[in-house]
């Protein structure tokens, strides 16, 4: 046996108690960072006490300037100030949206660089990619968290829109990496909002509508919570509809009162009127009227004016909502919960119309601008193991119990051991046990015990149509895949023909933390007997294989029982082993019977081989033998 060295504990067993992780809402117009402080998810402010970090980066200085400090440059140096970078994340030039991006780029005074097939912002003396811009925003949030938590932060949960595809998610991950963050998980924004409201802890199936009207985008997601897993049933939205559009509409209305249009204004003036429109809109959330100034003009704007201006926009969001609901196959009455997300949902007219549409009062207790980041922080806190296990059943990061398959003899073969970090996928090859076997049964199990009967049976499926082959020649590859939500899918495919069968299960359905602990304790308590049982079953299989091989050999060549005392012993030993297999009382002696037969069988097989050789060679000349071997 080789020599060993002491290795570091495997990641799953690492002490995670002292680590802090953060949740980040990387938004189109604003970004936030939150973490658990004093057992409560808390939004972390900057040193001036501001929570929202405008997703704006200015590249005109020696180093990137992010957030509020970059805001003034929108007016003074818009060419080098990047806003709404999220819209460009992971987008390929070839995509159907390329046209739209081109338009947006013109709007933001940037160019599309086709070199990498990705949009690149061409600045005065350099180029930056959307990933780099996002990384700068993330880094600012990371530093903010490190300042408050007085600790190095490396791990984060980052939220992304539910509709983000793989490229967009990958781009977000790369940006995080560049910012020095390890992504514990990318969490869908609507799911994060549901987590913040604790809906994941309701022990029942729920249908949730998340109405997210942010600065620049509108998203509506229909989620289903079932068996502790959030599934996105439908998403719909408009990437160019948000609070900013209301600002623009309000600005146009103000200018219209003076017979002016937005187009006649200089870029600086445009920005100025938009900033004013936004502050009027915000103050009308609390007050019924506000005063607007533009040059010599002064006017009063009431809430009803704003309602009138916003109405077409809200109508549009409700049309989208209706569409999403239809796509999801759910009825309006199926929706159990409605959650409001995004600053624009603070507007009384939005709340009223959403309430009217869903015929229920939406959740709005948590600040709609903070709810996603708070949900991300809750998730991050769970993922680093700060939450008492009984509360963290639903969203898993490691497999709490091993997953495996039943093999011959009623034994459980572990494929993914417990405490494996999720997501994971593992492949293992299996083969046939008997000649000409044309199908295989896969019994998917969960648990720590050695015998199938002591484990939790998850599912059974069959792979049929394996071409007839000698035992051990077929190659069946079984893939176990567990995704980040703990959903297990098992696929079996026979490699020569490509035939496949698969099944999907939620392994932890109906199990809580105490069940898991009981399983674990049982496996410890029964460690000794389990080991014996496994050995016994394995011996049984070996015995059966030996018996099978002997019978096969006998049928090929009838030996003369009476004359040969050796073969009499062999028969007796064979009969004894067969009897021991069949009879429970004799199982203790199985080993003994097996060993006796094994020795005799060895002698028999070598004798048989010699006889074959002899009969082949007998009476032949050397030349003849050479001829045989050459044939």
């Amino acid at each position, binding site marked *: *046996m*080789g*020599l*060993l*060295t*002491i*290795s*570091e*504990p*495997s990641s799953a*067993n*690492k*002490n995670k108690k002292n680590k802090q992780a953060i949740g980040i809402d990387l938004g189109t117009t604003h970004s936030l960072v939150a973490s658990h402080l004093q057992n409560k998810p808390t939004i972390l402010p900057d040193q001036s006490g501001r929570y929202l970090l405008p997703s704006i980066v200015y590249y005109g200085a020696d180093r990137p300037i992010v957030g509020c400090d970059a805001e003034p440059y929108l007016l003074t140096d818009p060419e080098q100030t990047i806003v709404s970078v999220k819209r460009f994340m992971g987008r390929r030039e070839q995509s159907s949206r390329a046209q739209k991006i081109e338009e947006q780029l013109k709007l933001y005074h940037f160019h599309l660089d086709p070199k990498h097939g990705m949009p690149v912002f061409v600045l005065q003396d350099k180029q930056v990619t959307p990933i780099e811009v996002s990384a700068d925003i993330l880094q600012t949030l990371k530093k903010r968290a490190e300042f408050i938590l007085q600790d190095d932060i490396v791990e984060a949960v980052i939220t992304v829109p539910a509709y983000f595809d793989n490229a967009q998610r990958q781009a977000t991950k790369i940006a995080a990496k560049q910012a020095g963050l390890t992504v514990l998980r990318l969490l869908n924004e609507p799911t994060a909002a549901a987590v913040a409201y604790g809906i994941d802890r309701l022990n029942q199936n729920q249908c949730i509508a998340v109405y997210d009207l942010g600065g620049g985008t509108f998203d509506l997601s229909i989620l289903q919570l079932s068996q502790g897993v959030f599934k996105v049933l439908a998403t719909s939205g408009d990437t160019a509809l948000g609070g900013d559009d209301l600002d623009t509409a309000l600005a146009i209305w103000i200018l219209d009162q003076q017979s002016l249009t937005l187009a006649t204004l200089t870029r600086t003036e445009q920005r100025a009127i938009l900033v004013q429109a936004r502050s009027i809109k915000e103050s009308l959330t609390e007050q019924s009227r506000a005063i607007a100034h533009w040059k010599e003009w002064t006017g009063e704007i009431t809430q009803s004016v704003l309602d009138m201006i916003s109405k077409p926009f809200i109508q549009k969001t409700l049309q989208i909502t209706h569409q999403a609901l239809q796509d999801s196959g759910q009825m309006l009455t199926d929706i159990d919960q409605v959650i409001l997300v995004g600053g624009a949902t603070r507007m009384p007219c939005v709340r009223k119309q959403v309430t009217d549409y869903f015929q229920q009062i939406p959740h709005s207790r948590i600040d709609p601008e903070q709810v996603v980041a708070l949900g991300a922080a809750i998730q991050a806190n769970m993922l680093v193991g700060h939450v008492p296990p009984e509360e963290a059943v639903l969203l898993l990061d490691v497999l709490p119990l091993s997953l495996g398959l039943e093999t011959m003899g009623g034994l459980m073969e*572990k494929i993914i*051991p417990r405490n494996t970090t999720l997501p994971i996928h593992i492949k293992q090859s299996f083969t046939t046990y008997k000649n000409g076997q044309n199908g295989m049964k896969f019994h998917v199990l969960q648990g*720590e015990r050695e015998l199938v009967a002591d484990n939790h049976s998850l599912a059974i499926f069959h792979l049929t149509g394996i071409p007839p082959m000698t035992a051990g020649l077929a190659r069946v590859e079984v893939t176990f895949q567990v995704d980040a939500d703990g959903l297990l899918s098992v696929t079996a495919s026979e490699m020569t023909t490509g035939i496949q069968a698969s099944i999907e299960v939620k392994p932890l359905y109906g199990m809580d933390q105490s069940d898991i602990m009981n399983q*674990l*304790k049982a*496996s*410890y*308590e029964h*460690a*000794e007997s389990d*080991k014996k049982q496994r*050995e016994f079953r394995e011996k049984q299989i070996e015995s059966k294989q030996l018996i099978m091989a002997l019978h096969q050999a006998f049928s090929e060549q009838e030996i003369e029982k009476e004359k040969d005392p050796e073969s009499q012993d062999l028969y007796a030993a064979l009969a004894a082993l067969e009897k021991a297999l069949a009879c429970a009382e004799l199982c203790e002696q199985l080993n003994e019977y097996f060993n006796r037969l094994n020795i005799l069988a060895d002698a028999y097989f070598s004798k048989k081989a010699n006889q074959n050789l002899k009969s082949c060679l007998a009476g032949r000349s050397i030349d003849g033998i050479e001829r045989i071997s050459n044939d």
Partner: protein
Amino acid sequence: MSITLTPAAIDKIKQQLKHRGYGVGIRLGVRKSGCSGMAYVLEFFDEIDDLDHLFTFDTVRVAIDPKSFVYLKGIDIDYCREGVNEGFKFRNPNADNECGCGESFYVE
């Protein structure tokens, strides 16, 4: 039946723990691996699990989870040099088959 560590092994573990700077002791275990059944696990550990079997040699703490313990009862661990290699050697009275690659062992 318990486990034993040779003085050379204890010294080496102490030295390596000191070098690492933190940690409670070492953990022994088995996992299914290789061509002949099982392989040993030897790693540092930072946290005691209530269910672990715990042994102390001088100041060195050794933890073994109950499931692995079944296969490790009576094991003797030494630190030695074989040719150009040096490392911990496991002498397991339970093991009766070692595979050719040296990665795994088998218990009868």
